[in-house]
């Protein structure tokens, strides 16, 4: 197992995170709800998992995201 760099996280914490990630992967493949969903995902309904999406779907997701989170308007000056 990968060792934590300078104990930022304990081996137990890393083991737990990897186990949760595996459980999520298995649920995703089986089409079940994720057992350990990322709470931030609820704020972004457009989010997709890129490794399971086509380039067109990724582009479409970006367009949807831009609708709910627009870039701030550029400041304009007139000379």
């Amino acid at each position, binding site marked *: 197992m990968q060792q934590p760099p300078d104990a930022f996280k304990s081996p137990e914490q890393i083991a737990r995170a990897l186990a949760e990630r595996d459980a999520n992967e298995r649920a995703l493949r089986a089409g079940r709800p994720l057992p350990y969903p990322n709470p931030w995902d609820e704020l972004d309904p457009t989010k997709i998992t890129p490794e399971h999406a086509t380039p067109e779907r990724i582009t479409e997701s970006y367009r949807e995201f831009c609708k709910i989170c627009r870039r701030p308007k*550029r*400041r*304009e*000056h*007139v*000379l």
Partner: protein
Amino acid sequence: MPAPEAERTRTLSDFADLLAGLGAGGFDFSVVGGLAVGAYGRLRGRSVLSRDLDIYADAENLDRMLEWIARHGGRVRKRPQPRSLPVAVAEWHGQEVNILTESSGLPRPADAIRASREFVLREHGGVRVLVADPFDLLRNKVRVGRDKDRPHIEVLCAFVEEEVVEAFRDEERPRDRIRPARQYLDALGTTTLPASVAARLVDLARLASDFRFLASVVPAREFFDAVLARAPSAAGDAELREDLERIAATREWAS
């Protein structure tokens, strides 16, 4: 007698055809350097001496822009060489154009371009030109630190100080009120505000976050005393006043 052509101060308007062409070509770039400073200066009725157009872009856009310039009547005089300054020099109708891919104090080109402001050149059919953010320009000029940049620094400080004050006067959200002041400190590379700005902000402070921020960045004890004097003093504001005293205790005041 008019100034000789070589000594004349130039503005974005002198390069409007080139800037319009590069914009129409879809290149990602932003104007930096003296002409950029001059554009902000003009908004406040100031002018600065500047002759060359300095463009900031990444290496890919630089190569393609040089090709475009050569194809449209310009001349490429120098391409960036390994282990030398990352700048290309071109000539456009007898005027010098420098294209840089890095410069001290400027963010990476992509970030600088994202933060850039759009200038509309009314006399040239509304040509739109991206000009680096004034706080980025100021950081750049301060870091480069040449004597000839001092007038540019003065013009930029005058411009951004007004934005710092406007934010304190007009914005409602705490972060929006404080952000320009933080950007100003970052650009100057200092932790305390100039006295003239601090005095104006103290007069405009009204949110608890304003007072906490000012307590940590005013340049001298007398300004802190003014912050404390303006801070709300009702019974429910005791926590804020305690915070301010705590911040003051961490400050080392210049004698």
